[in-house]
């Protein structure tokens, strides 16, 4: 049997660089789309926003709203809640813009706002007894980027992944979402979640272990 090379498999798609601007969103005013895609740093956009201009802040929203939405979605599991979390994150960002520390990375600060709101929302969902699987049940994979497996198997697998994620403690889920889904390193995650690097690595390790344990149980049919 051929031995598989045990190196990290390349991701099926571009590695998300948290500091890089996202692709332009269709439907935006031309000035804002241009500003969002211009080679201007986030700190510079913050400075211009503080000076009273509104377009730079709109450009910041255009740059980060997709990532904010998807991070929130993978934490809370619902489209509506993820949308609310993303919007609320930008409102809070606007309110505290004057407190931005220009010596630090913008995305670290912003993703911290997103994660705090998303985890709070997840806890509210759980304390209400509702499941966050609702929006995902029946979801289809992106055919352009799906790995070479039968679509039905992939859909079933993704459904199982969601059900396992649902069982994880929010502190493990947060690290797994940021690290394994969104590609941030442990060094980048640590200041976002206000943890030390060692704690982040431990939570990643423990989160993956717990994920595996729950996965094996679902495979044995013990819980679903």
């Amino acid at each position: 049997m051929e031995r598989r090379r045990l190196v990290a498999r390349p991701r099926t798609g571009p590695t998300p660089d948290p500091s890089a601007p996202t692709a332009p969103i269709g439907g935006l005013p031309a000035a804002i789309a241009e500003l969002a895609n211009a080679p201007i740093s986030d700190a510079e956009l913050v400075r211009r926003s503080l000076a009273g201009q509104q377009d730079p802040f709109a450009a910041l929203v255009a740059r980060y709203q997709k990532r904010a939405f998807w991070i929130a979605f993978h934490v809370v599991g619902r489209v509506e809640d993820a949308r609310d979390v993303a919007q609320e994150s930008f409102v809070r960002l606007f309110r505290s813009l004057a407190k931005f520390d220009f010596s630090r990375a913008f995305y670290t600060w912003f993703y911290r706002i997103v994660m705090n709101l998303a985890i709070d929302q997840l806890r509210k969902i759980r304390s209400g007894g509702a499941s966050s699987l609702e929006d995902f049940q029946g979801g289809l994979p992106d055919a352009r980027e799906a790995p070479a497996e039968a679509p039905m198997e992939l859909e079933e697998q993704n459904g199982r992944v969601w059900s396992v994620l649902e069982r994880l403690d929010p502190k493990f889920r947060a690290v797994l979402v940021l690290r394994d889904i969104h590609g941030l390193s442990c060094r980048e995650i640590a200041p976002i979640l206000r943890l030390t690097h060692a704690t982040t690595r431990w939570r990643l390790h423990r989160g993956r272990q717990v994920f595996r344990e729950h996965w094996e149980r679902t495979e044995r049919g013990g819980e679903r």
Partner: protein
Amino acid sequence: MNPSCAEIRTRLDGFVGGELDAASASVVAVHLRDCAACRREATGLQQVVHRLLGLRDAGHPEVDDSTFAAMHAATMHRIEVEVDRTTTATPWVRRVLPIAAAAGLFVAGWWMTREPSPPSVFVRPPIGSPVALDRAGVGPATFVVPMRQLGDESLGPASDGFGAGLMGRWRLRTLEGLDTDPWHSGREPAVVPVRGTDDPRR
């Protein structure tokens, strides 16, 4: 030196996630070639990472660019509302004054309705008892604490019971030892006659 399995397993998460430098990754890879147990562990971790990555690629059927365009518009509308709210905010004086007025009324009400404090010892009149007679045993007397300056013998020598020195200026007021104390003498307490009322000589 071959690292132990325990040492390798501490690096497996970084190895699987591609976070190790080339030298460390090479050490782990060499160990995994020969150690089936660590290889199984690494494979399990890799499967976890791959399954979670599948969620990023899956997206959601209801979410596309138009969703984000609408979200952008809604977010900017909320920001505009926030800007309007902060620019038309009430000046702080108009917010603080009602609170200060309410606090002032509360304090005034408390001051007027509180229990009056007892008068100071220094202005309190000496305690007079209608039951004592004076030293001569004649008329009504009040308990007067004899006070004398140092060296003053007008009240009798210090052995008189008044003590000497600073403490001699005071005599502890007790009912014992007072000859004129009617409670101990058995005499009827004297009542100060008030002309026109209880005076039996009227």
